[in-house]
């Protein structure tokens, strides 16, 4: 069995199992903890509107901090959009998703994917350097932050190298890329990467709780 056979076979199989197992464990666990009865008398409110309102309002920086977090805010959006485009609209990736989900979607030309992947990598490295050097960010960062950044950064770099056929034989680079994705999938449910799934439901829940109490947020 070659490295690529392992990476695209048993390696991917175990990584996917651990990923869906872990994500469902944490997500369902969190959802089941929500059903605690709230004994307070609710204000008049629309829970869906309050939940969605919180998702939208928290997508922009609070006015008081606007100038101070502008860099973080912009780079955060650029990073996430570049990552989404690179991951979700590269034809070979879509073929993988199709094999897992049973359906696919249109792809973008490789040149665009290469540009977005390079942007995503550059922004993430910038943010990593900032986190490691900025006194406040450094103080509030723990191992989880750094591990989560690295397990996402390595697939990006190995993906670009595999795409460009630079640094080794294509099948070796592809195998390393797949293995790095598998490390990311295994880490995902147990570290801060889980925010990708938890953020929106958490905002929604906070929004409905605030709405019930008549808090505008």
């Amino acid at each position, binding site marked *: 069995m070659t490295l690529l056979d392992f990476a695209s076979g048993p390696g991917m199989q175990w990584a996917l199992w651990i990923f869906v197992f872990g994500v469902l464990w944490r997500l369902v*666990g969190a959802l089941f903890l929500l059903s605690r009865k709230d004994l307070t008398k609710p204000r008049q409110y629309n829970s869906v509107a309050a939940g969605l309102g919180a998702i939208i309002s928290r997508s922009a920086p609070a006015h008081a901090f606007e100038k101070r977090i502008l860099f973080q805010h912009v780079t955060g959006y650029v990073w996430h959009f570049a990552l989404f485009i690179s991951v979700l609209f590269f034809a070979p990736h879509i073929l993988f998703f199709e*094999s897992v989900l049973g359906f696919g979607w249109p792809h973008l030309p490789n040149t665009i994917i290469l540009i977005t992947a390079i942007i995503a990598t550059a922004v993430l490295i910038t943010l990593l350097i900032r986190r490691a050097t900025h006194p406040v960010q450094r103080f509030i960062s723990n191992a989880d932050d750094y591990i989560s950044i690295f397990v996402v950064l390595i697939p990006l770099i190995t993906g670009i190298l595999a795409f460009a056929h630079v640094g080794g034989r294509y099948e070796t680079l592809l195998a390393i890329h797949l293995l790095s994705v598998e490390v990311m999938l295994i880490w995902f449910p147990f570290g801060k990467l889980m925010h990708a799934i938890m953020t929106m439901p958490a905002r929604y829940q906070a929004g409905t709780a605030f709405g019930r109490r008549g808090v505008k947020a």
Partner: protein
Amino acid sequence: MRKDQNLGEYLRAQGVSRRGFLKFCSATASLMALPPSAIAQVADALAKARRPSVIWLSFQECTGCTESLTRSHAPTVESLIFDAISLDYHHTLQAAAGHGAEAARMAAMEENSGEYILVVDGSIPVGNPAYSTIAGISNLDMLKETAANAFALVAVGTCAAFGGIPHANPNPTGAVSVSDIVTDKPIINVSGCPPIPVVITGVLAHFLTFGTIPELDALGRPAAFFGQNIHDRCYRRPFYERGQFAETFDDEGARKGWCLYKLGCKGPTTYNTCATLKWNEGTSFPIQSGHGCIGCSEPDFWDKGGFYNPISAGMWGSRDALLGAAAAGAALGVGSALAARARKKKAQAAEEA
């Protein structure tokens, strides 16, 4: 070709011009990634070469490799080069049969001990040697016996090089490659199902010129021919970059000659020279005729998850197993939430008491 005749004399007798011969030498030098200054050396060495003894053993194979090498097209300089070796034993091509054939093999081995080239096509069954025998001799015994005094071995075709189709899961005959059996001799793997004719003539030309085996890659294949993957040399590569793919074999993309990646083409992970040398005198190759590369020159190409599955689709198992993992995760989530609630309730009760 008479045994006392050298290759230059033989080619002249066959009506091959000096220009044609040098053209072949230039192409051979270029194929072997040699500098232009080596062309004269190649021409000189080839012209003076005495034909080496070659013993060709065919084991678990389909004869496709022999068909490819000997019947691919009308005689050319390449095929004359092929004629110019002394093929002392070859089931399909030799006139002798039975004991006479075996006697020819033994005589060639004795006369050219330590100097002959042993070409093997087909895999060797070790599960039960009786699956394939020649003159009552098992393939395993014949290979060991013939390889013992060979100068070098050439494993022609993916079956001999890596086990090939007989080796495919579940490998009922216990098929193995030549290099699994012979470990003390140089082995050149000329893989492919079948290999391109000019690759074997190129390997022989290298041997005739330098008396050595060519530079090999990690899988024992001549680097000059197997150094680059099909994808990097494919004329459809620009369509891959533009994201223009054939979705089926008869859609608009297929008719326009777009990239076959989505239809399972294994070009990116296959190392061979099909996209440059092509087949049938440089006429075409599988991708040019509209079918994706099946990766036939790579080990275990038969067990890579299907010829029509895209490389990136992977072989990660069934969707049912994935749903099982999801259900187990969800059950654990419910369980841990209930356990947390019970712990909290217990703590509250203890506090109230």
